[in-house]
């Protein structure tokens, strides 16, 4: 094994870190230093107000501040908002801004910028449910914004955090140009702890410390460099060789196991509760035989989720039973998993009127998968084919050469079954409802492309969306999850095993529910790199 300075430092830091949680502060925060993050995600631009996703979210949350941020236990924390207060009727939220916050060009951040930002998000962001009930934002003074709602909207606080709601400058983006294609999206004037120094599309983003950031002494780092690396093997080797300091959103089991053995690195699986990525098998419920719940249940009983996790994912992923990520406070732990039971699967298929033919085949189906992520998608699809053959279902695995081909098939409903992975995005209103509401059956990817319609589910989700009482809301979602688990429009397989690998000398690695998609103003080096 090669012996480098890095390993020596890493060994010392690892000893220091013994007994502490990943990301916990290990010493008095130190100013200075650079952080090199590697990512496969190439952002189109850097403005999360008009663009969702990790690629824009990670740099976007460094460049733009939001009103709130969240800790690791789902609690809102002050950020640009120093305080907030709900009206008793739940129909308005008053937010008070910090007094000293300025944009990167020195202009003060005011309530007018808040109102402009939320309007921009309402008009341009794909997550239309985030601010749908927001009818108006009043700005009685420069540092107060009052959100007026048409109905109670308990998801609002979460929608005001992280990459979901960047506060963008009205004096830059309000110049009459279309914000979705505004030139400043690639050269933003931000409000966050780091300002853009250089953006080389598809290659590298360099961010520098913003000296006038409104939190005294922050950020600790001088610079964050986000390097786009397309090949996961290269990323692993770059981390191993010490060329990069942090590898977030990493889910490739072989690389995970390899990097876990590198003594100079630490890792955490925390920080991905908010995004809640679920790997699943979706059924097209519009046509036979998958319009029959017994057939869908039979398939669920025939697939061994534990085998997928243990063998295909080398034990790096965790099981997922329902539509809400198991790390969410809304998850219903009462859901019974579909444990492998081939006899029951066969009985259900017989009952549904699909007897086996002379060759043992009952019927044929196709299965699609998202290309480019073999471990979570293609390998699982291949396994499902072999497994379903055991209960008399012949499955044809249809490869798509690229994402648009797959997305086109699924959006147009031209599929029987498809592998997919979809994000929860914190609150069910934002990332869960879209998959199950019958009003969201549309020819657009990541809507209700299963064609699943259940009036009871529609009613529960409508009620839960505006139920301010947390216990009642949790109960509604528990009921919803049970119905989905019973009716199986989707068979849930596993939570995507996102890992953050990082240099062991790095402290306060982001482990809030939004993880790396939240400002890294608290991250620091415990010693010179």
């Amino acid at each position, binding site marked *: 094994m*090669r012996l*480098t300075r890095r390993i020596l430092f890493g060994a010392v830091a690892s000893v220091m870190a013994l007994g502490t949680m990943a990301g916990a502060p290990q010493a008095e925060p130190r100013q200075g230093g*650079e952080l*090199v993050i590697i990512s496969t995600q*190439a952002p*189109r*631009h850097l403005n999360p107000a008009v*663009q*969702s*996703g990790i*690629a824009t979210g990670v740099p976007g949350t460094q460049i733009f501040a939001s009103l709130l941020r969240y800790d690791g236990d789902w609690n809102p924390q002050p950020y640009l908002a120093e305080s907030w207060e709900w009206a008793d009727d739940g129909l308005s939220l008053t937010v008070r801004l910090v007094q000293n916050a300025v944009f990167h060009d020195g202009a003060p951040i005011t309530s007018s910028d808040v109102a402009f930002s939320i309007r921009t998000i309402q008009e*341009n962001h*794909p*997550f*239309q449910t985030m601010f749908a009930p927001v009818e108006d934002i009043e700005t009685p003074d420069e540092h107060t914004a009052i959100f007026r709602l048409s109905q109670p909207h308990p998801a609002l606080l979460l929608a005001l955090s992280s990459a979901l709601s960047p506060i963008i400058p009205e004096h830059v983006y309000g110049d009459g140009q279309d914000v*979705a*294609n505004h030139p400043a*999206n*690639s050269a933003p004037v931000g409000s966050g702890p780091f300002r853009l120094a250089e953006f*080389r*599309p*598809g*290659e*590298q983003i360099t961010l520098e410390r913003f000296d006038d950031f409104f939190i005294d002494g922050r950020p600790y780092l001088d610079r964050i*460099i986000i*390097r*786009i*690396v*397309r*090949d996961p*093997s*290269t990323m692993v*080797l*770059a981390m*191993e*060789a010490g*060329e*990069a300091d942090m590898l977030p959103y990493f889910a490739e089991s072989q690389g995970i196991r390899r990097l876990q053995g590198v003594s100079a690195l630490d890792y955490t699986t925390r920080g991905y509760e908010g995004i809640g990525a679920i790997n699943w098998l979706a059924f097209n419920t519009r046509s036979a035989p998958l319009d029959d719940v017994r057939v869908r249940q039979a398939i669920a009983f025939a697939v061994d989720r534990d085998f997928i996790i243990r063998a295909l994912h080398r034990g790096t992923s965790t099981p997922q039973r329902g539509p809400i990520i198991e790390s969410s406070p809304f998850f219903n732990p009462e859901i019974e998993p579909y444990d492998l039971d081939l006899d029951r699967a066969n009985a259900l298929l017989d009952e549904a009127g699909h007897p086996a033919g002379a060759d043992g085949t009952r019927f044929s189906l196709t299965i699609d998968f998202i290309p*480019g992520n073999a471990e979570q998608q293609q390998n699982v699809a291949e396994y499902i084919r072999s497994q379903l053959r055991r209960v008399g279902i012949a499955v044809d695995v249809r490869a798509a*050469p*690229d*994402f*648009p*081909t*797959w*997305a*086109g*098939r699924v*959006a147009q409903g031209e599929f029987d079954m498809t592998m997919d992975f979809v*994000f929860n*995005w914190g609150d069910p209103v934002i990332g869960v409802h*879209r998959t199950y509401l019958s009003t969201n059956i*549309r*020819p*657009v*990817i*990541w*809507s209700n492309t299963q064609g699943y319609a259940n009036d009871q589910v529609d009613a529960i989700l409508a009620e839960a969306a505006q139920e301010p009482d947390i216990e009642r809301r949790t109960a509604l979602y528990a009921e919803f999850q049970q119905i989905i688990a019973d009716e199986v429009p989707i068979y849930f397989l596993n939570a995507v095993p996102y890992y953050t690998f990082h240099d062991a000398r790095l402290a306060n690695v982001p482990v809030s529910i939004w993880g790396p998609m939240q400002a890294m103003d608290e991250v620091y080096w415990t010693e010179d790199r």
Partner: protein
Amino acid sequence: MGTTRYILRRLVYGLVLMVGVVVLNFILIHAAPGDPAEVIAGEMGGATEEMLAQIRARYGLDQPLPVQLWIYLSSIARFDLGMSYYFDRPVAELIGQRIWPTVLLVLTAQLIAIVLGVVMGVLASRRPNGPFSGFVSVFSTVGYAAPVFWTGLMLIILFSVIVPLFPVEGMTSARFRGTGLAYALNVAHHLVLPAFTLAIIFLAQYARLSRASMIEVLGADYVRTARAKGLGEGAVTFRHALRNAVLPILTVAGIQFGNLISGALLVETVFNWPGMGRLAFDSVLRRDYPTLLGVLFCASGVVVLANLLTDLSYRLADPRIRTGGR
């Protein structure tokens, strides 16, 4: 035929070829299922139908295909490569940032392949049945047969991880911000592994070719005459034999240039080299038609130019071609 007239004629042919490449690729990529708006929607985590319609309208994707082709060709005629659907930036700007890394990589690899390949071939030809000749044959076959992805990763593991001599990825270190000589040295340091990886495939061909060519030439009468005149072995090999043996190598070098560029695509992906190959690869996946077509247009231009230069160097190396064989 006069050299100037010859060059002009070749350039016109080249231009026609480039337009042909663009039209053919335009039709091919539009025949593939899925559209750029889906990619942008995917990147956004979903979109409404209205958003998809807006994206399609903005980039003219709602127009009939012949109209789109006509618009594209007329903008090409004005030297406008259009806007990238994905990055919403001028394609010329994206290509401008990446063309020189690719040219640097390809030319360096070509140089390494030719020089090392010819030296190995020449040395092997002096004892065609000797152990070195055998080594060259084995090395050539393995180098040619090994997938470039595998070769690249093996070199990284060997020379970046186990023996940390060279960086794993990129054209400069992420932290590097120097200029001038320091920048050149940083780039050169990063260039070694990708250039060798790319060169190994072609090195094999040049080694085999120059070995065979030299064996044939070394048996020719004029070489025997040179030896009979008492010339040293070095002078015979390099001054008399090699000059004649090098002609087929030049021909192959020209033909291989296109293959080098396509090989660069994989090398750029493995080594995260910020070149046109990676841009083209990503653009295919993103259905970013203007960027892909722009890259293909420029790449075909480079290949046309390389072939022209090969022909010209051929005329310089062999006076018989220049004079039409008289």
